[in-house]
C-alpha cells in the first residue's frame, strides 16, 4: 500500500477573502488593523473554525461599531454591519429568520458593554442560538482611545486623562460573569490573546462556541482579552505584558458557564405554512358575511334613521359588546357601520363607552360628540351624556341602576329596568342585551330575528346563546308591553 504522508498547512483561511476588495485603497491583502492588534488573530481563529466546520456558506457575520466595523472586509460569508451596540438584536432577527444559518455577533467592549448592554443581556437571556465574540481591550480603539466600561481602575485614556476614577465612573464591567448569572446561556468563557498557550486556548473556545451553535444548543459567548497597542500607547510586546499583568488580574480567565454536554438541541423551527392556507388561520373564529344588497330603512320612522349612538356604563356591563353586536346586526342588513370605543385611561377606572354610527352611506366621522341616541347604564353615564343628546333624540336608561329622573324634556326618555330584568332571567350580566332589545323594539330598526342571526355568528360560547336570546327577547317584550 502506498503511504502518502499528510501535509498540514496553516495558511490564509478560506473563510477570509483572499483579496479584501471591499477595503478602500490600494492595499488589498493586509488588514486595516494596527500592528499587533488582536482583532486579526481572532479573525483567523474564527475563519479557521468556519473552514474546518464547513459552515462558511451559511455563516452570517454581524460587524459592530468599533475597529471591527469593517469585519465584512474580511469574512467571506453573508455580512451585516450593525448600529453601535445592536449586533445581538440584528443577529436575533437574522437567526430567527434563517434558523439554519450560523450567526456570529462580533463586538468590542464599548459596543457590547456600554451602548449595547441592554441588547446583549436580553439576547443572552433569551438563549438566542447565536455566538458572540466579545473583544475586550479595555479601551475605545476606533474613536481614538477613550475610556471603555472595561477600562481598568487608574488606566489613562483620553477621557480619563488622569486615570480611571472608579468612584466616579464605576468599576470595570465583568460581562462574562454578569451573563453567567443567566439561565439560558450554555457556554461562556474568557480567554486572552497573548502567548502560545493562551492563543491556543482561545482557539479552542472559539471552536467550541461555534460547534455548540451548529449543534443548536443555544447562546454561546467568548470574551477575548485583547491588546490595543496603539490605543494603549505601547508597542505590541509591552501591550502583551500589560494585558497579562493587569487585565488578567481584573478579568480572570476561565469558563464561567458550560452546560453544553447536558443541553438538548433546540427543536427544529417550524416552517411557515403556505400563503394559500393563511386565511383559514387568520380569520378563524371571525364571522364573515356577504353584502346582499343596498341598505334600506323600510318602515323605520325618519327620526330613528341614520342613528349616532353612544352606549355608556361601567366596565363589565358589556357596553362595548352591546355596541359591537348592534354593529353586526346593522352590517348584516347591509348598512355602513362604525364602532369606536373610548380607550385608554377613559376605559379604565370603571367607565366604558362606545360610539356606533349606522348609515345607508359610508360613515365619515366615527366619533360622536352630539349623540342622537344614548344608552346609559349607570348614574355617572347618565350625568355625563344626557346633556349631550341632540334635541329630539332618544335617551334609554337602565332604571334599575340610574336613580335620578331625566331632566331633559326635548328628547324621548325611555326607562328600561335592564339589570332587574336580567337578574330575573338569572344573570345580571345580560342587562346589555335587554337594553339592545328594548332599543330596537322602541325604534323598530331591526327585528329580534335579525339580532339572533348576528348572535349566532358572533357568540363563541354556544352555551351562552340561549340566555342571550332570551335577554334580547325580554327587551323587545318589555317595550311592547309598556307601550
Amino acid at each position, binding site marked *: 500500500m502506498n503511504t502518502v504522508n499528510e501535509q498540514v*498547512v496553516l495558511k490564509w483561511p478560506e473563510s477570509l477573502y483572499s483579496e479584501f476588495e471591499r477595503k478602500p485603497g490600494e492595499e488589498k491583502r493586509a488588514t486595516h488593523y494596527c500592528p*499587533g492588534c488582536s482583532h486579526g488573530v481572532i479573525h483567523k481563529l474564527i475563519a479557521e473554525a468556519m473552514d474546518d466546520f464547513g459552515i462558511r456558506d451559511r455563516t452570517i457575520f454581524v460587524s459592530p461599531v468599533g475597529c471591527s466595523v469593517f469585519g465584512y472586509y474580511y469574512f467571506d460569508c453573508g455580512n451585516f454591519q450593525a448600529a453601535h451596540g445592536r449586533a445581538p438584536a440584528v443577529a436575533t432577527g437574522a437567526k430567527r429568520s434563517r434558523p439554519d444559518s450560523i450567526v456570529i455577533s462580533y463586538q468590542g467592549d464599548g459596543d457590547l458593554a456600554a451602548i449595547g448592554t441592554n441588547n446583549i443581556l436580553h439576547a443572552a437571556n433569551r438563549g438566542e442560538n447565536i455566538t458572540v465574540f466579545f473583544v475586550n481591550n479595555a479601551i475605545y480603539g476606533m474613536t481614538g482611545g477613550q475610556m471603555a466600561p472595561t477600562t481598568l481602575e487608574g488606566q489613562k485614556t483620553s477621557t480619563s486623562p488622569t486615570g480611571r476614577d472608579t468612584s466616579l465612573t464605576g468599576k470595570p464591567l465583568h460581562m462574562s460573569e454578569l451573563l453567567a448569572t443567566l439561565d439560558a446561556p450554555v457556554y461562556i468563557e474568557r480567554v486572552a490573546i497573548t502567548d502560545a498557550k493562551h492563543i491556543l486556548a482561545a482557539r479552542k473556545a472559539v471552536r467550541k462556541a461555534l460547534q455548540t451553535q451548529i449543534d443548536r444548543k443555544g447562546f454561546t459567548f467568548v470574551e477575548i482579552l485583547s491588546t490595543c497597542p496603539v490605543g494603549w500607547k505601547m508597542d505590541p510586546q509591552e501591550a502583551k505584558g500589560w494585558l497579562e499583568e493587569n487585565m488578567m488580574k481584573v478579568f480572570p480567565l476561565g469558563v464561567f458557564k458550560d452546560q453544553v454536554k447536558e443541553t438538548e438541541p433546540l427543536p427544529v423551527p417550524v416552517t411557515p405554512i403556505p400563503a394559500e392556507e393563511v386565511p383559514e388561520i387568520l380569520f378563524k373564529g371571525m364571522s364573515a358575511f356577504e353584502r346582499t344588497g343596498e341598505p334600506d330603512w323600510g318602515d323605520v320612522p325618519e327620526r330613528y334613521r341614520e342613528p349616532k349612538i353612544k352606549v355608556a356604563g361601567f366596565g363589565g356591563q358589556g357596553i362595548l359588546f352591546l355596541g359591537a353586536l348592534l354593529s353586526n346586526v346593522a352590517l348584516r342588513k347591509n348598512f355602513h357601520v362604525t364602532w369606536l370605543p373610548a380607550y385608554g385611561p377613559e376605559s379604565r377606572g370603571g367607565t366604558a363607552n362606545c360610539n356606533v354610527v349606522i348609515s345607508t352611506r359610508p360613515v365619515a366621522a366615527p366619533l360622536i360628540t352630539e349623540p342622537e341616541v344614548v344608552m346609559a347604564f349607570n348614574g355617572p353615564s347618565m350625568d355625563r351624556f344626557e346633556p349631550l343628546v341632540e334635541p329630539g333624540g332618544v335617551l334609554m336608561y337602565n332604571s334599575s341602576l340610574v336613580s335620578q329622573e331625566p331632566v331633559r324634556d326635548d328628547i324621548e326618555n325611555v326607562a328600561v329596568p335592564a339589570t332587574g330584568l336580567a337578574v330575573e332571567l338569572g344573570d345580571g350580566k345580560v342587562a346589555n342585551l335587554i337594553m339592545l332589545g328594548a332599543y330596537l323594539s322602541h325604534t323598530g330598526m331591526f327585528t329580534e330575528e335579525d339580532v339572533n342571526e348576528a348572535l349566532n355568528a358572533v357568540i363563541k360560547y354556544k352555551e351562552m346563546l340561549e340566555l342571550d336570546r332570551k335577554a334580547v327577547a325580554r327587551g323587545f317584550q318589555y317595550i311592547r308591553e309598556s307601550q
Partner: protein
Amino acid sequence: MSSTPDTKDPVIVGPDVIIDPEMCKGCNLCTYVCPTGVLLISESLNHLGFHPAEYTGEGCTGCGVCFYACPEPGAITVYKPPRKPKKQKEEV
C-alpha cells in the same frame, strides 16, 4: 526560501515557515512566541513601511504558534511536520 508563498506548492515539505514580508506589519508577535527563536525582525523595510519578520531558515519545528499569533491572514504560512494519514494510523 521563496518570499511569495504558494501553499499549494507540493514541493514544500514541513516543518517549514514561510513569511510574506509584504504582508507583515512588523509587530514582532511571532518572534516573541516562537519557541525555538528562529524568527527575527528584518533590517529592511517592506512596501507598507514596516520591518517585517523573517525566518532564519533553519530550526522551524512547524509548531504553528507563530501562525496563530500573527494578526495578518497572509503574512505567515506554516507547514507542519508530515504525519501519517489517520487511516494508516488505525491500521497500525
